């Protein structure tokens, strides 16, 4: 698909449309909330900003590429003065006092925020059903889940209610819903975009990233959000990705993990489509190599062990003192306990308990420390792989989206459904879901800080698949 940002920019500059009418049209569509994607509408702010853009255009002044472009924000980002609920009962009435760095950069570039988007509570889930705002419905088939945890964001982009949305990806939360709703979703290299103002789930793999309908829109948005930020000291200065640098494919070799494809857990159609895509790539003269990788259950277990340990620590502050809906008990400890028991969802409680379990004496050596060791081995494995190949390809998910209700019944099946995304998170690598190749897309991964190569290869796949 062509860039929606460039198209709307032209329409605004040529006065074919006004910014106010564009924003009002999108707000009207979001207000219907047919797919449970909306936690709160930012209508007043959006219309005020749109009017300013119209005045500027009317005065003959030039506008920037993102000025007046409507976008959505997963409801885990701080935006000053807006409700930031993380789709949880605990923070249902919490208002952000400040704005996340990534979002502030978009606001400074003139983009207009429309909506705080539904997601799994605190990012805990792969289906966007674990939320107080109702399960997010898939954009194509509303009986199926929208994916998660950034489900509301992916569905809004797919339905064109937003031009792009900002999701958050810890173990696949941008890439999987992007795949389930046939749009692009990028998890950049860890540290490329500041996490300041993103509600922390697992700090060592949390990433900010865009979801959009074209590679060009992903490129524009990621460039604006990237850069070193003193408020997140894991950030680094990255190079701007130019339109020219991703136009021509330089990739000579791609690899794929044969155990992902030979697994009994993969849907036969996804397997066949993926192998056919590899054949098409080979026909274009690109070398395709089989690679060895860790078993899916080891990857999923390593990821969830570390993520649960980190979320147990990150969410310990949510006890009704500084944040959250406090419920008084007979003493202070009782108050904390009731507040957390009543306000956290079952899935969040499961992860906090699991995290405290692995961090406690007697468990930490054989589980948590082993998990850290495995993560280092996974990272080492990737370093070796990228000496052999330029890009690693993989399906995004082993299966098609489940029906609404099914994931809640079987948490283990939900964890295992993340088998193809979590490894790249542990490696802190740049990974893009492209809506091609299989019915839930194809995942394109490169070595750290090679986000440009990922987008370049996505352009190539877009031409050949």
């Amino acid at each position: 698909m062509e860039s929606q940002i460039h198209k709307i920019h032209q329409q605004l500059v040529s006065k074919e449309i006004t910014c106010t009418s564009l924003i009002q049209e999108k707000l009207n569509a979001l207000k219907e909330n047919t797919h449970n994607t909306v936690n709160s509408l930012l209508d007043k702010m959006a219309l005020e900003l749109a009017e300013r853009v119209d005045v500027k255009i009317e005065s003959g002044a030039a506008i920037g590429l993102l000025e007046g472009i409507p976008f959505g924000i997963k409801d885990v980002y701080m935006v000053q003065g807006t409700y930031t609920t993380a789709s949880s009962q605990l923070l249902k009435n919490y208002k952000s006092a400040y704005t996340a760095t990534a979002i502030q950069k978009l606001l400074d570039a003139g983009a207009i925020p429309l909506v705080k988007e539904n997601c799994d509570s605190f990012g805990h889930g792969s289906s966007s059903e674990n939320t107080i705002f109702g399960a997010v419905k898939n954009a194509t088939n509303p009986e199926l889940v929208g994916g998660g945890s950034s489900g509301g964001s992916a569905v809004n982009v797919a339905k064109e209610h937003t031009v792009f949305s900002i999701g958050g990806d810890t173990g696949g939360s941008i890439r999987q819903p992007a795949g389930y709703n046939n749009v692009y979703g990028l998890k950049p290299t860890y540290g490329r975009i500041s996490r300041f103002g993103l509600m922390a789930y697992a700090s060592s793999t949390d990433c900010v990233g865009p979801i959009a309908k074209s590679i060009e829109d992903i490129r524009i948005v990621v460039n604006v959000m990237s850069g070193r930020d003193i408020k997140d000291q894991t950030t680094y200065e990255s190079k701007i990705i130019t339109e020219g640098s991703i136009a021509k494919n330089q990739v000579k070799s791609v690899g794929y993990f044969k155990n992902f494809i030979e697994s009994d857990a993969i849907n036969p159609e996804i397997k066949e489509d993926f192998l056919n895509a590899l054949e098409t790539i080979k026909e274009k003269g690109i070398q395709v190599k089989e690679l060895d990788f860790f078993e899916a259950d080891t990857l999923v277990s390593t990821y969830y062990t570390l993520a649960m340990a980190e979320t147990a620590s990150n969410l310990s502050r949510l006890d009704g003192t500084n944040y959250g809906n406090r419920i008084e008990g007979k003493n202070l400890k009782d108050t904390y306990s009731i507040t957390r028991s009543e306000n956290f969802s079952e899935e969040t409680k499961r992860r906090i308990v699991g995290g405290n379990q692995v961090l406690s004496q007697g468990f930490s050596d054989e589980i948590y420390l082993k998990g850290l060791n495995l993560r280092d081995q996974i990272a080492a494995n990737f370093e070796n792989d990228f000496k052999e190949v330029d890009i690693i390809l993989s399906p995004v998910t082993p299966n098609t989206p489940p029906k609404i209700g099914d994931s809640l019944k079987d948490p283990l099946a939900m964890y295992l459904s993340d088998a193809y995304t979590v490894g790249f998170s542990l490696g802190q690598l740049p990974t893009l879901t492209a809506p091609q190749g299989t019915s839930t897309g194809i995942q394109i991964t490169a070595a750290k800080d090679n986000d440009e190569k990922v987008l370049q290869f996505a352009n190539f796949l877009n031409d050949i698949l």
Partner: protein
Amino acid sequence: MTVDILSSIKGAKESKAVSKLFEAIKNANTSKYSFNNLNKSAVSLEDLRDDVVINSSALEKSIIKENFPKEKKGYLVVNRVIEE
């Protein structure tokens, strides 16, 4: 200490699904690799930011007050945090 007390969650119990994940880790083979310590996300001491006080804007202060709506003699009333 039991997990319900560690987690401050009443009646919290270990989950079967999560225990299965932990079993997989226990059984995973790590012997063929040495511990490489490749995780380089830590910030070096030279790179730490200065410890400076940044005043909140008037808007930020007013939103913080909104999140703590109780007021007594011009001060925000926050919840009790120390008991024993």
